[in-house]
């Protein structure tokens, strides 16, 4: 028993020792991000300075920053960001909820496996962008069509990833749960879903990225606000600096959303990271 405790204590020490102090880790990560961004800006500036592309189509970093400032000062940028975020968030929540719920059905029930899964397998490869005209036909040019497009695009990766995780629970865990007397519902809630949590979260992160791709497509028609509309306008008026700035904003929002999901779900995925 004494050696058991000693071994466990050593294991804890190893785990603790392997983890860098929180502040140092955060500073290290931020430094990495800053250096990476600086290198990307430098590379962009070099290509712009060489002049192999027309200046109007390949603006310099200061010109892109100036375009961003002009958008901010015009008062359009913040409402556009908020509206796009709202549409993306609503579509993401609906698409994720439906994706996870259907993944539970297709993995845990015979009817879902036999009837629903083949239909979803046929639906999954259809490019969501191709559904935009259909969404407009069905829901008009208002908010519903935009949210529907985002939700459909989010649904596919969330369902695929969640289904994969939920249908591959190790047999050992299921046998242990059966021997302990757990019914199907308890097994699903406490064994199958938590064990699949890392896969479900991976699907959510891909889905979040997809939401930002699709919001641009959805906002190119039938609206006069949103980052997608602003990008479309910039293209129409050959404002590459405005267009690139909006794309950078989308990138920042997408990366922030990804980090938000990763951090919010860490309590349910930490065990898997520690197992690796």
């Amino acid at each position, binding site marked *: *028993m004494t*050696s*058991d*405790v000693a*071994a*466990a204590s050593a*294991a*804890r020490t190893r*785990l603790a020792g392997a983890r860098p102090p929180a502040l140092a880790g955060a500073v290290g990560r931020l430094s990495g991000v800053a250096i990476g961004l600086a290198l990307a800006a430098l590379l962009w500036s070099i290509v712009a300075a060489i002049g192999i592309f027309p200046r109007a189509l390949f603006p310099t970093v200061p010109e892109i920053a100036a375009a961003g400032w002009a958008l901010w000062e015009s008062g359009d940028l913040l409402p556009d960001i908020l509206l796009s975020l709202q549409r993306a968030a609503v579509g993401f929540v609906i698409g994720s909820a439906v994706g996870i719920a259907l993944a539970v059905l297709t993995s845990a029930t015979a009817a879902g496996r036999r009837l629903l899964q083949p239909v979803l397998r046929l639906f999954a490869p259809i490019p969501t962008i191709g559904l935009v005209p259909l969404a407009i036909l069905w829901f008009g040019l208002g908010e519903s069509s935009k949210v529907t497009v985002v939700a459909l695009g989010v649904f596919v990766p969330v369902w695929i990833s969640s289904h994969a995780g939920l249908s591959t629970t190790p047999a*050992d*865990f299921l*046998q*242990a*749960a*059966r*021997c*302990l*007397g*757990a*019914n199907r519902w*308890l097994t699903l809630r*406490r*064994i199958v879903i*938590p*064990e699949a*949590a890392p896969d479900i979260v991976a699907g959510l992160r891909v889905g979040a990225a997809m939401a930002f791709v699709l919001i641009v497509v959805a906002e190119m028609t039938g609206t006069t606000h949103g980052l997608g509309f602003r990008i479309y306008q910039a293209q129409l008026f050959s404002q590459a600096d405005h267009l690139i700035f909006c794309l950078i904003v989308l990138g920042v929002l997408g990366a922030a959303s990804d980090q938000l999901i990763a951090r919010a779900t860490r309590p*349910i995925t930490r*065990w*898997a990271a*520690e*197992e690796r």
Partner: protein
Amino acid sequence: MTLQAHGVTVQFPGTVIPSLQEIDLNIAAGSFTVLVGPSGSGKSTLLYCLAGLLEPTHGHVTENGETVTAPHPRRGMAFQRDILFTWMSVESNIAFALRASGVPARQHRPRVRELLTAVGLSEDIVRQRPNQLSGGMRQRVGLARMLAGEPEVMLMDEPFAALDAQTRLRMQDLVVDLWSRLRRTVVFVTHDVDEAIRLSDRIVVLSEGAVRSSIDNPLPRPRPADSLADLAGYSDLRRRLHHELQPTIPLTT
């Protein structure tokens, strides 16, 4: 609880030779039966049938005369690998078994502590996750979780095979202690002759899917590991077991 195998035969799809062939076995209430045999002799397959995890191709298993058709916490199972739920804390692992057995939630915390004490663990570890524990501690938590279901029979499939020698001896002491204190029935699978001699009332030797012999263990208890060989009858029993475990088909070179 009396557990019986009646002509249990198991043949997995695509195989020519059955893994178990017409096994008849009677596990008396309160006994400590050890199944020994070389790899592939059918020990674990038989244990899975007794647990209700595997349905025999022919024959059946009965528990107090009723046919076993599915696992039940009355027949607790300890697997070769400690199958603790890695995303749960020690407390949640044991509480899962309590919840599965219908124990009210307000009783979980005190019961978890009782069970940890029963297997020689401190309640300080309740918040730790399995990957923060040593192999021996994980097996103890696994035993506590099995005991949470109030099993009448403890079915143990080489649970200590992956442990170091010292930890293994301590775990053997713990199992014997639990068996004698709680008066449960134990069916224990091993391929280690000394482990079988140290633990058992009766040793069932399996070979090529059939019961080759059933030997009562005459050694008095307690059986300390360091003086096991000094006990009267040890050498004869060990010699007999080795003889029984000889392959029926001579190995050719």
